């Protein structure tokens, strides 16, 4: 048997290209590589913004009673306050963070710390934002976001003295971003292991990961990290 298929007489040889329709004399010449001339642009109505789409403008919220009383109780704490998609965000000066949190918890009823995390703005100074989300049961389920800008190498004050639940949240932010929390009772890595080198959620950490042998071969690699960038034992996993 041969692999060659017998050529069937019924199968016509490759059909010649479809005869191009004779262009009307007045029609413009089609552009090269394009079978049909582009239809003239329809006059379509401008795109409607989606319903209730939040605009880019963020109404200032510093006039709200809560923010005003916070600014009055802790002078210099409130740097900016705005509203966005129905959520209020307050930028707080780092040196007044603990005082402001203490005031919000004790006097305004924000007893529940929902979330605390960090964001890396790689090319910005200061580099990191620490976000806190507070919840108040007594003020009609109100939520408030606090935002603190922290530079690389600087420490953010800890709020573990205000809400105990901040303990692991801050450990996670430290582990993932390397943001230090000043006064934290137990600032160790939490999701990666002791001796891991680098902070995985920083924007300059490679997505492929790095090979840190530190945890597996403690006798081979010095404490505090795996092979350095110039070490031949270092592999970039991909």
């Amino acid at each position, binding site marked *: 048997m041969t692999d060659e298929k017998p050529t069937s007489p019924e199968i016509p040889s490759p059909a010649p290209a479809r005869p191009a329709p004779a262009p009307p004399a007045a029609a413009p010449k089609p552009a090269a590589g394009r079978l049909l001339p582009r239809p003239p642009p329809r006059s379509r109505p401008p795109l409607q913004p*989606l319903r209730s789409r939040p605009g880019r403008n963020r109404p200032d919220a510093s006039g709200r009673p809560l923010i005003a009383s916070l600014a009055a109780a802790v002078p210099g704490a409130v740097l900016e306050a705005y509203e*966005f*998609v129905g959520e209020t965000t307050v930028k707080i000066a780092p040196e007044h963070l603990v005082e402001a949190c203490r005031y919000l918890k004790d006097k305004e009823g924000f007893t529940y710390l929902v979330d605390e995390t960090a964001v890396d703005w790689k090319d910005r100074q200061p580099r990191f934002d620490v976000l806190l989300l507070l919840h108040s049961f007594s003020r009609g389920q109100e939520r408030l976001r606090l935002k603190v800008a922290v530079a690389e190498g600087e420490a953010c004050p800890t709020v573990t003295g205000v809400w105990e639940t901040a303990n692991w949240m801050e450990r996670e932010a430290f582990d993932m971003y390397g943001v230090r929390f000043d006064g934290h009772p137990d600032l160790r890595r939490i999701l990666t292991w002791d001796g891991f080198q680098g902070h995985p959620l920083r924007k300059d950490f490679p997505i492929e990961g790095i090979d840190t042998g530190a945890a597996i071969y403690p006798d081979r690699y010095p404490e505090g990290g795996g092979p350095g960038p110039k070490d031949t034992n270092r592999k970039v996993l991909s």
Partner: protein
Amino acid sequence: MSEPTPGTVAQFPPLAGPPLLGLHEMELNFGPQHPSTHGVLRLVLKVDGERIVSARPDIGYLHRGTEKLFETETFPMVIPHTDRMDYVAAATNNHAYCLVVEKLLGVEVPKRAQYIRVLLDEMQRISSHVLWLATAAIDLGAITPFFYTFRDREVILDLFEEYCGARLTLNCMRIGGLPVDLTPGWLEKVRAFTEPFEKCIDEYEDLLTENRIWKERTVGIAVLDEKRCIEWGVTGPVLRAAGKAWDVRRALPYECYPELEFDIPVGKNADTYDRYLVRVAEIRQSRRIVLQCLDWLEKNPGTEIRGKVPRVIKPPAGEAYASVEAPKGELGFHLVASGGNKPYRLHVRPPSFINLQALPEMAQGHLVGDLVAVIGTIDIVLGEVDR
């Protein structure tokens, strides 16, 4: 020993006593491969005889860098990753993520899609609570509830499979709505399961609620009162068992929950037994919600399952937070968008991670044998703790 009268519980000897071995405390490693840790939780215990002096959780064995992965995927591609966090409650994970993107985009979800989403959520809650019941009971030596609960969980998973093709990692929601419409005849199958399900819950309760061994193992174990719960940020059935009727579905309502009738069960003694009662009561409430959703969907047939979503999803720059009541507590997604088609930063507020933090306080002073009850009572999933 005299037979205790029904409805009462034998009294324990007081837990705080003189140290059994003087100052000779021993360090004991619990996990990460212990079957009662529901995954890979490691606890470093300090014990004095049989009594726990301190318990220190060591987590991260299942860390997969999910939040880093989120940043490399476009907005719709993130959804399957959320399935893998709390892998026994994938629908609520999908839901919370979709909510936060919809909040930033300003997309309206059609009513029909809202009801189907809630229906899926509540079926997921039933299956998650039922799984909790099976594993928590098996940890304490009661193997029979496992067979009853898995019989029913299997039906729910089959129904999920018929709807979206998957049993655990559902991937069953999309930004703005749902991926596919319901299969013909699916609603009748859900009804055929849900209506007689009340009897199944009675069967679980027959096995455990007045069971003397179950009560002796759970009453008075791992007490965490309301004030301490809030201090630790603990939410979900653990908070409600402490007497606080707080539920995200009511406190910060989303989708069609304001139109549905359901109660928030609360406990009183804030112990493991009350958490069991609260969870069983929540299964009943979820069943109620499922039936209401079925009624609505049968009365309002339609095909609209997705809102008007742009082809390329690019939310405006800014922060948003949205949360749902997951079976374990408040599950939130904290999204920071920079105007691109990928999330710049997407942080998860996992209820298991936050609730686990209170474990040392709950375990202190108990016997080593009760530690499995303490771990079971929080209802953690390590996929969500470590992400």
